[in-house]
């Protein structure tokens, strides 16, 4: 067996992260109190907009080929959408969470 020559495909590393994160998500989400399920939805919405990193890459491409212009266009619109979600999602979650109060005694 030639161990040294074998290289693990990066896909496998990504898959490991993914599978472990699914399990982490499973346990973390079950521990969320049902009273906060609506903020849970709005905050998951906000964090899934981390897709913004892809939008930033697309909008920032150098103008090297005919496809670059298209990529910039798509990236620009994606960036707007992602930012609506990031700002809207986090702020509306903050607004909701600020309303949850304990009994004042």
């Amino acid at each position, binding site marked *: 067996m030639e161990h040294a020559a074998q290289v693990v495909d990066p896909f496998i590393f990504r898959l490991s992260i*993914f599978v472990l994160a699914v399990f982490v998500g499973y346990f973390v989400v079950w521990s969320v109190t049902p009273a906060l399920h609506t903020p849970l939805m709005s905050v998951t919405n906000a964090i899934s907009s981390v897709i913004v990193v892809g939008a930033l890459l697309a909008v920032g491409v150098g103008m090297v080929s005919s496809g670059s212009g298209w990529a910039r266009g798509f990236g620009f619109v994606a960036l707007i959408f992602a930012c609506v979600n990031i*700002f809207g999602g986090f702020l509306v*979650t903050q607004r909701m969470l600020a309303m949850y109060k304990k009994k004042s005694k």
Partner: protein
Amino acid sequence: MSANLSAFLYLVAGVLFILSLRGLSSPASSRQGNLFGMIGMAIAVATTLASHPPADGVAWVLVILAVAIGGGIGAVIARRVPMTSMPELVAAFHSLVGMAAVLVAAGAFYAPEAFDIGTPGNIHASSLVEMSLGVAIGALTFTGSVIAFLKLSARMSGAPIILPFRHIINIVLVLALVFFIFGLVRSGSAVDFWLITILALALGVLMIIPIGGADMPVVISMLNSYSGWAAAGIGFTLGNSALIITGALVGSSGAILSYIMCHAMNRSFISVILGGFGGETAAAGGGGGEQKPAKLGSADDAAFIMKNAQKVIIVPGYGMAVAQAQHALREMGDILKKEGVEVKYAIHPVAGRMPGHMNVLLAEANVPYDEVFELEDINSEFAQADIAFVIGANDVTNPAAEEDKTSPIYGMPVLQVWKAGTVMFIKRSLASGYAGIDNPLFYRDNTMMLLGDAKKVTENIVKAM
């Protein structure tokens, strides 16, 4: 910035996102959790800008412009949206995540060199697979969420739309999608890419239109899940751990919420997806036969009885949200508490149009969260309560779910309001609820019906007190 450092920072962002969800385990830690989420997002954005800075001045201008436009719109929406509109807002936000996934994939397809996945027309096969999955799930999340938004905001009827041969059409669409994904991987042609997008857009519409209004809590959770998987697909394409972790978190979060919602309705996920519930078909199981007269009461009667009670449990439902009655309701609760009455709130998991909808509305009206209880925690207390005050809820209190084996909702966990001394129902009419099922509770001797708009009736009760 070195590739290792940026990969590490993305990991930090991913961990912060995990902590932001962890914070939601209690209202006390939730605000800190939200802050972690914001910091994570800031780190992810800063890392991208530092490791792959926009290529030229024009690109910088585009970035700043897009952030200003998007951020401005988002901030205004977040400030202005009424809490009763949260379900449609969340649906709208899901659609944006879906569309962003499609657009990012398109950007990667036309400029693969910027994403380190190959050169134009010569993209790595594995990246094409990941990309096409991301784009397909993103596109169906987009149109599915748009339909859900239209239904939730009543811009479109909540009734299920049943097309002939819809299952066959859907299967054909899915097979065609798989075919073109293989096509894209083999040829790398733009035609295949856009065909996948169009097919998935159509599939999203067809998947959501047959699902009725009462099943919306499941739909909205399911779309939440899809938006996560779409993000994860793009994360694989970019090899970005923050995106992969977040996609997995959001995907499993939505899946768990869908499960909780299905369980609370005693329906299988498959039957919700197949749709058609909440139409005329469900009406058959209702009692209908011997129609006894319901006992109608006035606001004065209700006020008098409640003031002399020892324990009142309030059961809010979608009708409260529609009538915006939560503030009047809290006022009523305050007066009762001053009179020495014990007041509690009981919430069914599917009350309203999304998970946790009622809790947010009560919190908005300043009801302390430690007076609000979930079904399994409060169901045993109805027997000791003098009054169950049901405002705008119906199906979730229907005893047929426990007693009538022929009822379409038989087996669904319900709030046992009938065990209380007196049940007061605020309803607009004696009509059946969303599931189209008659509620035998309306005609029982210890039930008092208060017919009218939830907000007006509650205000009248407050005045009469």
